[in-house]
């Protein structure tokens, strides 16, 4: 990545207006911010109270009820991981052909349609999809996995298509010049080149999906989110603390492992 150019001082440049574009933007943002603060009734008085209230709730978090953590929270976290895994697998299988079809350089006409579909799929947050899947396949983790899978397809298709578009086209031409068909060109020239990066994107999506699946429990689609919602609703703060601690540890661990694998794959 090249560093952005440092500011060049040009003595011949005429001074601009006193209120520059940056200052204007800052003022507009500040004005919007103040309006928004007033509209959601976030008064200065409330702002002073917030740290105290947060500290008060945090003080209830101790002692952490780890027994509840091992018995009830860990299975829920594992369920979240399973949801994320199945969702990622669904998305990976669906998105690989779509990514190839969505590459402008390979299939100029189909690519436009594929890109439009993937943009629409990306616009839905997982949790809204889950709201539809829960009544269709019933309460539980399966609905969550489907929601995660569908919403990941859009993003993986887009990223995958970008990877395919950025490859060296020489090998594709080489395969076709020796009489290979389009399919053979995909198999021997395109896929080997793009696969490492695409797999890295899958892993990254898996990391994101773990966070997404953790919240799906809120609408009854399985996983740890429902546990947290219930413990907080009934004010079992020691149990909620166990949820938070275990979630943080597990997610950190998975991020570390997945990040390490991604680095290895990209290096080759």
């Amino acid at each position, binding site marked *: *990545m090249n*560093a*952005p150019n*440092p*500011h060049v001082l040009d003595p011949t440049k005429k001074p601009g207006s006193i209120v520059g574009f940056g200052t204007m933007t800052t003022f507009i*943002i500040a004005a*919007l*911010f103040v309006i*928004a*603060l007033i*509209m*959601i*009734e*976030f008064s200065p008085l*409330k702002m002073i*109270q*917030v740290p105290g*209230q*947060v500290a*008060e*709730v945090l003080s209830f978090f101790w002692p952490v009820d780890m027994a509840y953590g091992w018995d009830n929270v860990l299975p829920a976290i*594992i*369920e979240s*991981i*399973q*949801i994320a*895994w*199945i969702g990622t*697998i669904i998305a990976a299988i669906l998105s690989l052909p779509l990514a190839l079809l969505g590459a402008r350089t390979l299939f100029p006409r189909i690519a436009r349609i594929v890109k439009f579909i993937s943009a629409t799929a990306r*616009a*839905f*947050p997982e*949790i*809204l999809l889950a*709201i*539809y899947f829960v*009544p*269709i*396949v*019933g309460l539980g*983790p*399966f609905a969550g*996995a489907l929601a995660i899978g569908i919403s990941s397809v859009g993003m993986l298709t887009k990223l995958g298509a970008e990877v395919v578009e950025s490859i060296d086209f020489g090998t594709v031409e080489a395969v076709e010049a020796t009489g290979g068909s389009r399919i053979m060109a995909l198999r021997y020239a395109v896929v080997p080149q793009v696969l490492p990066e695409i797999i890295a994107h899958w892993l990254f999506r898996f990391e994101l999906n773990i*966070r*997404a699946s*953790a*919240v799906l429990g*809120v*609408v009854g689609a*399985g996983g740890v*989110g429902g546990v*947290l*919602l219930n413990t*907080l609703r009934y*004010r079992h703060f020691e149990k909620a603390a166990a949820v*938070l601690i275990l*979630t*943080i540890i597990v997610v*950190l661990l998975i*991020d570390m492992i997945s990040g390490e694998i991604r680095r290895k794959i990209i290096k080759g």
Partner: protein
Amino acid sequence: MNAAGNTTLPTKPPRNWWLWAIVLGFLTAMTVWSGYGIGFSANELVCNIAGGSRLLEESWPPDFSFLPRLIDPFMETVYIAIVGTVVGGILSIPVAVLAARNLSPDKVTWFLDRNFMNILRTLPDLFWAMLFATAVGFGPVAGALALSVFTVAVISKLWSESLESIDMGLPEAVRSAGGSWLQMIQFSAIPQAMQHYVSYALYAFELNIRASLVLGLVGAGGIGMILETQRANFEYERVTLIILAVLVAVLIIEQISETIRRRLT
């Protein structure tokens, strides 16, 4: 292929079959285990399709008469996103600077801040929303606070990486001219990465708009609260309307943000 009779083809690089077997085995095992764990069954899917199609029939056509009642909650969603982005955007500056390896004053600060940032990042937005809704009460303020934390997590991670890739000549020049650490950050480091900051802040705003749509599901204000009540009452025509309206609004806001980003960078 006869023409190539005399020439020998270069040997294929040897494949590491063991590694392949282990990776494939692991992937299959993981998938089967997860599939069982979540009760993945094609059977159930087919059986439930009937119920599903009834649901789809019920949720169409969307109930457009409900639209006017969406305006206020939607504006609340936008306000929450604005407050969250601005507060989080300001707070993320020191977090990002201290987490950049080349700018952080010492190893201990860097290590602590880096881990603080990573821990913030592990919890999803709705978890923060639940926590703040419990602490400060249900309503948009909880949502704005949750999004502030979420924004800090997003921007500081991305921006600290941009700060690590800046040209270190300028900061060194400021230092050797007798500037303090703060002056170095203010006059040489931040200006170099300012464009990145602006584009990450806009990106965070887009994420926040999306996130604030669903914050209401846990009682943290915005349009999600209406969504939750309509969903609980099985008013699926209204749910469809809300989701469609949200979709259109998100796409419009993303277009605006994209335009601004292109103008600024």
